């Protein structure tokens, strides 16, 4: 029973959201295979099941906005416009990767697209988001700083410090909580005394509400509403997206802490087949259009994997590059004019 509502969105947007989710799904399923093939190493955290969140939120952002994400960020990078080739190359550890092979899956970066990672210390990037928004506010730039994090991060002190500062200083931050109910193997109930996360966030005096994170249209509407508020000067906004990861936490996770029934139940809410079916049922898209999205995603992923494979490794002499900048800028701040 898929009851989506367009409610302000149009057919094209809905199809776009579906296509975006498909891009992530296809890309990440390939990542899992490439991990099995030992092409990708280190930690690999898949977003499969949660695609509606990134798709919906990203659709509400403009190129002027800043984006920060966690180590589970392939989807966010992809939808932000970071080329699939450079993401895949990064995971292959190639010099052509979007972080020059130094970052890997957890540390995708793209300055041009204001994509500030790929951050692997849980909660550690929330203060950064506050600082980026502060800089924007101080120089009078418009633009929202969207910061994604898991519900597990809400127990960290950084969450608390960041939300307080953002609200206190009325900064344009969109806090996007991806509540997939588990932090590795720790359930929300065993991590938070208050499991209604919007209540926690509202205690910082900021607008906060929860949204069905398995419904990309709901997510998109909430994100538009939130960015609208922020742009109008509301200060920070917190939205909880209720979602679920279908795969294990990472490729190392034996997934012992939840039942297959629970996982299966959530899989029935998989937004990709559901939205596809609904679009077709209601005559808003046809099978051919949808098949084309899958096809495009597959060929994008194929190209990415091929390019990654072909990409060169950074030479060993490059090891010490980028520890600091090659040369100091010639600025003479505070020297007197």
């Amino acid at each position: 029973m898929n009851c989506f509502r367009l409610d302000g969105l149009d057919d094209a947007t809905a199809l776009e959201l579906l296509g975006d989710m498909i891009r992530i799904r296809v890309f990440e399923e390939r990542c899992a295979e490439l991990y099995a093939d030992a092409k990708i190493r280190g930690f690999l955290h898949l977003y499969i099941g949660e695609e509606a969140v990134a798709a919906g939120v990203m659709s509400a952002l403009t190129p002027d906005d800043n984006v920060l994400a966690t180590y589970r960020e392939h989807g966010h990078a992809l939808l932000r416009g970071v080329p699939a080739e450079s993401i895949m190359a990064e995971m292959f550890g190639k010099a052509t990767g979007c972080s020059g092979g130094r970052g890997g899956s957890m540390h995708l970066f793209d300055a041009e697209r204001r994509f500030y990672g790929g951050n692997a210390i849980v909660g550690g990037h929330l203060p950064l988001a506050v600082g980026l928004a502060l800089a924007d506010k101080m120089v009078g730039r418009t633009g929202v700083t969207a910061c994604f994090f898991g519900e597990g991060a809400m127990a960290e002190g950084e969450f608390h410090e960041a939300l307080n500062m953002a609200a206190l200083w009325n900064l344009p931050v969109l806090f996007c909580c991806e509540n997939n109910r588990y932090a590795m193997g720790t359930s929300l109930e065993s991590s938070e005394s208050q499991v209604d996360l919007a209540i926690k966030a509202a205690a910082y005096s900021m607008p906060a509400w929860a949204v069905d994170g398995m419904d990309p249209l709901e997510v998109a509407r909430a994100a538009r509403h939130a960015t609208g508020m922020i742009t109008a000067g509301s200060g920070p906004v917190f939205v909880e997206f209720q979602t679920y990861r279908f795969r294990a936490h990472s490729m190392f996770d034996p997934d012992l802490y939840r039942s297959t029934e629970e996982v299966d139940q959530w899989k029935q809410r998989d937004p990709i087949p559901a939205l596809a079916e609904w679009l077709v049922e209601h005559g808003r898209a046809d099978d051919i259009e949808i098949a084309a999205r899958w096809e495009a995603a597959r060929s994008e992923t194929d190209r990415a994997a091929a390019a990654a494979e072909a990409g060169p490794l950074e030479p060993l002499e490059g090891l010490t590059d980028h520890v600091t900048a090659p040369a100091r800028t010639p600025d003479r701040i505070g020297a007197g004019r």
Partner: protein
Amino acid sequence: MTQTIPLNAAGDDTTTIETTYRDAMRTAIRQAMLDDERVFVMGEDVADYGGTYAVTKGLHEEFGRDRVRNTPLSESGFVGAGIGAALGGMRPIVEIMTVNFSLLALDQIVNTAATLRYMSGGQFGVPLVIRMTTGAGRQLAAQHSHSLEAWYAHVPGLRVVAPTTIDDARWMLPTALADPDPVIIFEHNALYAKRGVLDSGRGPVDIERAAIRRAGDDVTLVASAGMVDKAVAASDQLAELGISAEVIDLRSLRPLDASTVQTSVERTHHAVVIDEGWRTAGLSAELSASITERCFWTLDAPVRRVAAAEVPIPYASHLEQHAIPQTDDIVDATTRLLETGR
């Protein structure tokens, strides 16, 4: 799969069993929990998940979730709670998943655990054990690949150990738990899967003395944690080159067993110190300085340091391996050292 090691009473006839470092560590925890109700385990995902490195796997089924306690992601908070529980009469084993996240708990460790006894004029002790994984080598990139043992070794009031053998994985813990002061246990990620023979009747071992893992005459290689096995491998290669290298496993990083090292260097007249951490103001600096202070007049050449390149650890495997000390680097440094000395 998880292996259950039979629990032996110390003092029983020595029985040996083949096992892994991981399972030996689990046995140590399990036995401690059986022995003493005050002992409990606390940390992120120590229960259902089984611990990030599966050390505590299954223990929550045996001991329940109160004594194998999952915490929220609150490193400073749960380390502080561990300190408080120790003050309150318990003997907590706090697991910080990895040293990387311990940066969030450093205030608690340095400003409270390490100072309370002193600041209170000896009234309050903190009998707390903190376990954490350390080291690079798994392509986890800059935020997940620290080797910060040197920072901990810097702090008075702490004891710091790094078991590298199966026996030490099993038998350092009871000694650490019996210590009236905080003990930090560093477990190098590469060691968990290490197989070997456990002397399951051995009983608690000291956590203060270094151990000679390979005897030798020409040069002393001093290493700890993930570097010990590389140093042993290097000594094998050096033997083929006709160089007899003694390998010392520090075991304790604070206090450092400088006298065991000194005795060796006074005989070999040469030392190479090896650390997976960064070079500047790292453990290798301390070793170099203290060896030189004690053995200046008997050294044939300056102590050589083999340490990590001064870079955030990169993801790409070839870069990462290049950044951290390898067996070849140790061999190379040693042969050069001996050339200098001649």
